């Protein structure tokens, strides 16, 4: 009895197993896969690294003075939070999920950024693109100081004022 019923169910269902990987997988339009960072848009501000729940995105300072935004797919949980917070719209969430690889390095994508150092003390102030873009919109007197760190900037400004009022620094 029950065997007959089962056979009829099976006959109607037919074969449902897909011949993946020889057939494309079922991925819906809602699916979130790995992310891609557009190096042309990214400023290296690091906002995405602060929201990323598993720390798959990190901002590292290198010895050679460059700043690297590093994306490690091995940790990524494909939540897309980074894309939601990036002020530059530099991150796109793709539908790609076939990420298996034999080495961990294959799962890393780096975006390198030059940095601006303080003209006086040599400390790193921030990523070059971000600084350049930010000063564009400021202009005037501010732009003069863009390559100074906040401390040196204070000193320079104070010195300027004192000279003006005739006090020797």
């Amino acid at each position, binding site marked *: 009895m029950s065997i007959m019923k089962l056979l009829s*169910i099976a006959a109607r269902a037919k074969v449902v197993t897909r011949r993946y990987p020889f057939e494309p997988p079922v991925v819906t339009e809602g699916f979130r896969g790995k992310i891609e960072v557009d190096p042309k848009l990214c400023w290296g501000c690091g906002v995405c690294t602060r929201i990323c729940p598993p720390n798959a995105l990190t901002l590292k300072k290198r010895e050679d003075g460059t700043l690297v935004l590093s994306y490690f797919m091995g940790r990524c949980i494909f939540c897309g939070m980074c894309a939601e917070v990036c002020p530059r719209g530099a991150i796109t969430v793709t539908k790609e999920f076939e990420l298996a690889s034999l080495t961990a390095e294959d799962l890393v994508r780096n975006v390198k950024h030059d940095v601006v150092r303080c003209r006086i003390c040599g400390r790193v102030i921030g990523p070059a693109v971000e600084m350049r873009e930010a000063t564009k919109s400021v202009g005037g007197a501010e732009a003069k100081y863009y390559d100074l760190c906040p401390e040196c900037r204070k000193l320079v400004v104070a010195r300027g004022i004192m000279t003006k009022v005739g006090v020797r620094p």
Partner: protein
Amino acid sequence: MGEQSKYLPECPEMGEVVRKLTEEYGGHVIFSRESEVYVEVPRHELRDVAKYLYSSGAFLKTCAAVDERPLNRSFALYHIFGMDSKGYDVIVKVSAPEDDAWVPSIVDVVPAADWCELEARDMVGIELKGRRLVRRLVLPEDWPEDIHPLRKEVPHDFRPPSVKAESEFRPPERGIPIGPYHPVLHEPEYFELLVEGETVVDVYYRGFHVHRGIEKLGESPRFTYQKIPFLAERICGICGFVHSTCAIMAMEKAAGLRPPERAEFIRTIVLELERIHSHLLWVGVAAHVLGYDAGFMHTWRVREPVMILSELITGSRKTYGLNLVGGVRRDIDKNKMEKIMKTLDRVEKEFKELANLLVSVPQIRRRAQGTGVLTRSEARALSVVGPVARASGLYRDVRKDYPYLAYEEASFKVPLYTEGDNLARVLVRVEEVFESISIIRQLLDKLPGGPIMHEKCSAIIPVDELIPPGKYAVAAIEAPRGEDVHFLMTGEGRPYRWRVRAPTYQNIPALRPMLRGDPLADAPLTIASIDPCFSCTDRALVIDVRTGRARTIKLWDGGVGTCRL
């Protein structure tokens, strides 16, 4: 609720309980909101308080130990009593000074306190006075004696030096080991069944092999309120959305904000979708345990469209990533609504046919009927939850007892059986699938307009400022396996203490009465019948049993899959 009172005394009103606790037991209220009241009582009164509450119809949800030494130089234990028939929680706090760290055990009065008391001893180092059986539950035997991981001075990434120690705790007789690493379900746990002939006389359980320290991690600087929902979602590979929603509900309570209605509807719809896929998964596994693999495969075939649908709505088949404090990240538009309706129609039709077939297969009926019986009084004493409770005649369902999100907007039945056997547990779940389908349809029909995120919240705004330190919150959700409870005590920018009690935690102790006296051949089905989910339970065990002569048979491996996707 009428059903409830048929068996249990109706719980008293909150005011009455507060009056009794403060006037007769010397307690004082430390915090309260609409559906929760926190009362601190002197520790010598705890047993009487517990007796009073349990006899007046309360269930014990769990207890949570907290290291409060940085705040007030003492340890605290919070017993969370749920007044199901009245829909509020009474949280009874007892404190113990740091140099005299003990609290009285209530396990003889409230058997459901067994595990959480032992967990408090392992994780925070509170001694339990008056308890006969004291053993390690969560920590492995070779863990150093004086290190209690949830004490504040222990770093979240602490690893003890590895020691080679022979396990000291062994049941005196040898029995039939099921396990250690993948017995009936593809997850690590260990059952030892003591048998006389073919009859199980006792059960010994050891779990927590996959304890991941998630609660501790949530308190560490590595996490913020914004990131915790994603962590909570990873507590379970089947009902992750339950955990993320429950953690968020606790945070939202602490922040005093309510997400927009539309977000509440969407969360409810996704929670019910999750129940459908979880129950279908389990029905398939049960068929497999019974050797009916055709049933297993067809159930999972019917389930697949639900997984695809979840991905469409949320972005992922599991670990949806949909929730944030204040709302949800994705809306359900017209197109998605239509797809949900279509999928539900198809699943309903196909599962109806399949479920009718499954429960009519004579071999299945014979194996499931009358086996693994849990009586109503045993179920009550252990405060079991979910389908296990409802198959034993206990009318408990968080969705009805403590209505949350949009559940009041849908009318649905709570299937109740009184037999308490494996068949009843199958039937409860089968019927619940159809109820869930109906709930989703009703909610889609009424889906209110408006935003899906609270105006004060978004992915970009750090919500940490909205959640002030020093607040308490208890949130509960009816997960597919039963009531899931999250207890939260807020700290600076992250939880001070976050306690998660998954449903299986409450249900595993019920396996002992279920398995005893039954033929050995039924044990795999009975173990599977509680739909255990060990990874949830193990975020944060041993049931000792000793009786009868036992004989030893070689390692037996049942090999079935549930829980992992």
